[in-house]
């Protein structure tokens, strides 16, 4: 699993990458009450704000970690946004994307580096 400085996790599954937010991020957000995801098929560029997470406190954006295409989204989050707090690393994955360049993943932090990053 790889981690971004925006507190997303990325997990390789075949030629796709599954993206979610970390436990640390979900704790910081507080109780999540709404998640808005991009449409499957959307072409995205690194840094595009493609998801919105609303907690009881505020709205936050999630950016595309890399260039690529969204191929699948987690429909369960629309009906059960609380999954983001309950199981951020598992059931609460946000989307799967096909990367334009799979090797671009190498630039992200591994778990040890991420743990150091969040202090």
């Amino acid at each position, binding site marked *: 699993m790889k981690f971004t400085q925006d507190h997303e996790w990325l997990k390789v599954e075949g030629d796709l990458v599954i993206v979610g937010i970390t436990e640390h991020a979900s704790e910081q957000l*507080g*109780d999540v*009450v709404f998640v808005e995801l991009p449409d499957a098929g959307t072409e995205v560029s690194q840094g595009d704000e493609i998801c*919105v997470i609303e907690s*009881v406190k505020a709205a936050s954006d999630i950016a595309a970690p890399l260039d690529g295409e969204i191929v699948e989204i987690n429909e369960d989050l629309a009906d059960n946004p609380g999954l983001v707090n309950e199981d951020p690393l598992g059931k609460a994955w946000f989307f799967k994307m096909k990367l334009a360049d799979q090797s671009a993943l190498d630039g992200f932090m591994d778990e040890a580096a991420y743990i150091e990053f969040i202090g």
Partner: protein
Amino acid sequence: MSDLHKTPLYDLHMELGAKMVPFAGYAMPVQYPLGVMGEHLHTRAQAGLFDVSHMGQVILPGAGAAEALEALVPVSLMALAEGRQRYAMFTNDAGGILDDLMVANRGDHLFVVVNAACKTADLAHLRAHIEDVQEITDRALLALQGPAAEGALEALVPGVGAMRFMDVATFGWQGVDLWISRSGYTGEDGFEISVPAPQAEAFARALLADAAVEPIGLGARDSLRLEAGLCLYGHDIDTTTTPVEANLAWAIQKIRRTGGARAGGFPGAEVILAQLDGGAARKRVGLRPEGRAPMREGVQIFADAEGGAPIGSVTSGGFGPSIAAPMAMAYLPSDLTEGTIVYGEVRGKRLPAIIAPMPFQPTTYKR
């Protein structure tokens, strides 16, 4: 946060694991480990303890206090019985709201509670019009709210259970006087308790020792009051909104209205009485967004799904844990009735919302 004021319960908040934030010049708990959602639901299910010591506590002594204060608010205070409390608002010459407040008749004085962010201005305003104005700085203010509040407080302070909504009385506890009112800011039955600062922590600990009582932060305080349809000063009401526009006309008794024995005689009376008689062009209403996306403060409201200019904007909005849905307040043209669909623009998309009655969550006051 070192330049912030601390309430007498600051050390207790730290011990309880509160996340502290600056609020109106005070370091205040925004949430405890239970979290905003958990704290909100706990208050509705059992009881929540809130530190509201940042609010201003003011005494106006003497027999003439009610008459003097009536010159600053559109509310009947001369008819406020001893042992009773009433909601009021300071108005300005344009009919706008300078602050909202609670006024209690405690026999030989009025006891007034004002918002933290407004208290310096409120005190100056009071002192410009009333001779004897005493700010109380040596007492904490706590609120205990929820269905288990009565039982938890009665166990410490026998007799409070006989109070009704908006009653005020003094009770003894471990040798000190508690000034208690049966009121609050959550829509639940509950109490607000002014306690001498040196005893505040011991009193709070005694309440928290009851398994039904959890400490509640400002985060849940906001979602609870919004579900209850209650205004937050500086957001839902301010100097640009009149009490009539704010849908607070219920707080203005007949005797202060046109034709009443003490009609007018408060700042902005001309504007406010005219709006009471002829209506205001806009009104604070409740909104229930149809989807799950919250419509927060500042979201612009449109009459149609496309085109047109905004017809108003959201003044408070968020997610209601008890109603399990988003909710908001907005100022909209008065001719739009409950049930009308309007559109809030959220991140560039217009989403439908229905004009809905408030409170969003039924209140449980013990009348």
